[in-house]
């Protein structure tokens, strides 16, 4: 016969055995999200142009494990990104850094867009400046477009 003490010990052992693997695999959605968000900002080191978060290769799994380990160790998102850039170079980032030689990648499109807007504004101003000049001979053009009415209005005005 088992005593109540034996049953309690067995229950305790059973609980420990069941809870140990569960604890090891406890999902942590917040941490998962942070790992995913950081990985989204980085490139896969071996697949050209592929996002780290979406890449299933062993290399990328290692990198994501490293991100997770560093976050679990208490590092901030910026510290993790800084670590990867310091170790592997600026090309690990999806967006090129806004410094050094890579600044040209950011500066030229902005300058070109500003130039394009400038050309557009200039073209609009020039076009609108020409219209009144052409319309000055008829200060109140006939909306119907009838040449007879236009001529009549001109005569009345004179």
């Amino acid at each position, binding site marked *: 016969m088992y005593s109540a003490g034996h049953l309690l010990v067995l229950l305790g052992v059973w609980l420990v055995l069941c809870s140990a693997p569960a604890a090891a695999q406890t999902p942590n959605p917040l941490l998962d999200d942070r790992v995913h968000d950081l990985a989204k900002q980085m490139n896969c080191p071996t697949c050209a142009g592929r996002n780290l978060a979406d890449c299933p290769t062993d290399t990328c799994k*290692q990198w994501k494990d490293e991100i997770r380990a560093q976050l679990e160790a208490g590092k901030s998102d910026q510290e993790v990104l800084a670590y990867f850039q310091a170790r592997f170079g600026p090309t690990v980032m999806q967006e090129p850094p806004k410094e050094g030689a890579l600044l040209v990648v950011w500066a030229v499109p902005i300058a070109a867009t500003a130039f394009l807007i400038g*050309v557009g504004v200039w073209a609009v101003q020039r076009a609108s400046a020409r219209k009144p000049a052409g319309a000055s001979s008829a200060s109140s053009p006939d909306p119907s477009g009838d040449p007879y009415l236009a001529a009549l209005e001109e005569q009345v005005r004179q």
Partner: protein
Amino acid sequence: MVFRKGVLIGVAVLAVLAVAALFAAGMVLSAQSGKRPTVGSPAPDFVMPLYEGYRAGFPETIRLADLRGKVVVLNFWASWCVECVKETDALEAVWREYKDRGLIVLGVDHLDTEAAARKYLADFGVTFPNGIDLQQQVSRAYRITGVPETFFIDKQGVVRKVVIQALSRAELIAEIEPLLAE
């Protein structure tokens, strides 16, 4: 009409500037990377930090130029590299066999996390010096195509052979012996 013409000119200028920017960026990055060393050309010099515990008597950092007078087997590897697994034992074997005759086997850990790299080195019982390819400076200088990739560098610091595949012990010895004999 004038507006449309202006827009067309703007778009054309934008396209030209965009192409010029990409070209300039490509040139800058290419210049930073340098040319791939070919057989007979000087091996690009570099300074590389070594993993603690994998320095083989060298200080914290190693400079290739300081190894003149030695034959250097410069091996690019990574813990995630399937092919590298095939040659690590052979590299370790030739290192142990030839290190007293003037051979340096120097591992360059490429795009690897430190934890995974250390586990790999420990699993294979590696003792030859191994360093971190910080910011991919060494792999860029050598313009490697992937891992594994091995450069055989003679006593004068000249690249004598480049192998882009896993090497066996016999293949390593076949390259090393003549260079040591020079």
